[in-house]
């Protein structure tokens, strides 16, 4: 298979499409934590219990009409598991060895369900751009269909019962991934992020809890799952994120108007390095891709597709890179191959030009 084809095969639907507010919002993700009523939570369950949970959930998922493919993680090599984490289809925690762990995923990689992670089920939907309302609709539909067949741990006072008290209630975590280079260059990033946290949102790096921010990419998610309904949670987030998007757009226009030479130079340098460098580590690549994407959105660069950032921010990750290259690579060689992949993508065939 050619490199081109391998790259294409490695893309989830959300990475290719430009969704609503796609100039700032990269993706929208929602997840529900659910447990079966009759079994201890995975952290305290015997392997026999976990097996029974797995069997029951799998049986239900097979009946649903979402075309879910069921992956027994025990049979999937560590490196391949990591690619699933890098594509945001499952958590780092789920990639670690453990009894009866399963991932169910649809062909578009839009729906994914982890079985026997911290909770018996973690149901996730993942969309390009800003699609919180649609996301909530779909995840509710999936949840309802599962609930038809299984008795779910729920109590009137606390709502859906989860292993961790931070998830009890709705069990809903909604995260929106945003790209904020304008606010950073305008010196307004810290202030904005602080304000968001004060409004009950959590701001984190690209890969969630404990991960650093790279490439001016941030995940904004709801903090609480008790006291607000799913609809209220999402509505609240839509309000806050629309404001952030507006601020980012204003910052970009401000930069273009007042610091055009500087921005133009930064963007074109990034494009130059990405198109010609021979070696590149992940951190540098993400920084440059962030600049390039800013240039595309400001129309300073016209020949590169806007989804370049969503695509490459995942494809250049260590495990994805090794999968695409079809071999295990030590870190020095990875930098060479990463640069090669980026050059290839930027010089790309007709499908890569806007």
């Amino acid at each position: 298979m050619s490199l081109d084809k391998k790259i294409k095969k490695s893309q989830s639907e959300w990475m290719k499409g430009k969704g609503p507010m796609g100039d700032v919002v990269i993706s929208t993700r929602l997840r529900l934590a659910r447990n079966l009523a009759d079994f201890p939570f995975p952290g305290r369950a015997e392997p026999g219990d976990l097996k029974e949970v797995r069997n029951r959930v799998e049986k239900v998922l097979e009946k649903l009409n979402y075309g879910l493919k069921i992956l027994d993680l025990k049979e999937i090599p560590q490196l391949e598991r990591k690619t699933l984490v890098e594509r945001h289809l499952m958590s780092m925690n789920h990639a670690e060895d453990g009894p009866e762990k399963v991932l169910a995923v649809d062909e578009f990689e839009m729906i994914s369900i982890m079985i026997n992670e911290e909770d018996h089920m973690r149901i996730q939907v993942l969309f390009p751009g800003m699609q919180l309302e649609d996301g909530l609709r779909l995840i509710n539909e999936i949840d309802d269909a599962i609930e038809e067949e299984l008795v779910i741990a729920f109590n009137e006072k606390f709502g859906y019962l989860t292993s961790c008290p931070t998830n009890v209630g709705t069990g809903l975590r909604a995260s929106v991934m945003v790209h904020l280079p304008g606010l950073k260059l305008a010196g307004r990033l810290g202030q904005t992020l602080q304000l968001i946290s004060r409004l009950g949102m959590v701001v984190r790096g690209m890969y969630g809890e404990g991960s650093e921010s790279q490439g001016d990419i941030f995940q904004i998610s709801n903090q609480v799952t008790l006291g607000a309904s799913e609809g209220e949670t999402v509505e609240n987030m839509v309000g806050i994120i629309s404001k952030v998007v507006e601020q980012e757009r204003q910052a970009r226009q401000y930069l273009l108007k007042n610091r055009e030479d500087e921005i133009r130079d930064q963007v074109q340098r990034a494009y130059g390095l990405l198109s010609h460098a021979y070696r590149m580590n992940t951190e540098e690549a993400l920084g440059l891709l962030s600049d390039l994407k800013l240039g595309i959105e400001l129309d300073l660069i016209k020949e590169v597709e806007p989804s370049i950032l969503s695509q490459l921010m995942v494809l250049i990750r260590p495990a994805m890179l090794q999968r695409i290259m079809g071999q295990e690579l030590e870190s020095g060689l990875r930098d060479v191959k990463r640069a090669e992949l980026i050059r290839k993508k930027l010089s790309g065939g007709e499908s890569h030009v806007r």
Partner: protein
Amino acid sequence: MLCQECKEKKATVHVTSIINGKKTELYLCEECAQKKGEWGFAAEPLSLHNFISGFLGGLEPGIKPKTELPGISRCEKCGLTFEEFAQKGRFGCQECYEAFSSQLPAILKKVHGREEYRGKIPRRTGGVLRKKREIEDLRKAMEKSVKEEDFEKAAEIRDKIRELEKELEG
């Protein structure tokens, strides 16, 4: 100042060690500090559940959340003790929520800022709550009808409420 190990990145971790009375100081970047195992935090990133045990300890000053506390000893279903829960910040099973229910509202309030559930209700396990919610909604609708002086509609809704209340009692 640059990291003394890799001499590339900025040093952000300062390590002082005293071995046999001899003091050595090291300035490292996060990455090298992690590699050398000099930075204890790095192994597990701090997250919300790490604070839960802190919340628990802070509930009543001077009193540790010991297993002897009345009513919150251990979950009979899965055997998790309240102390274990406080340490790990994880419940063992759904019964734990009943077993530790005397302490939970205070904890959940600290985590979420609120304690009452307002979300979705599952059809199967949430029957009673579903009806209660429905009654709540109907009451609001009835008040609105009364305000709008649509008494016919208000009476209709009232009958519906009575019906649901009867079902709840039965």
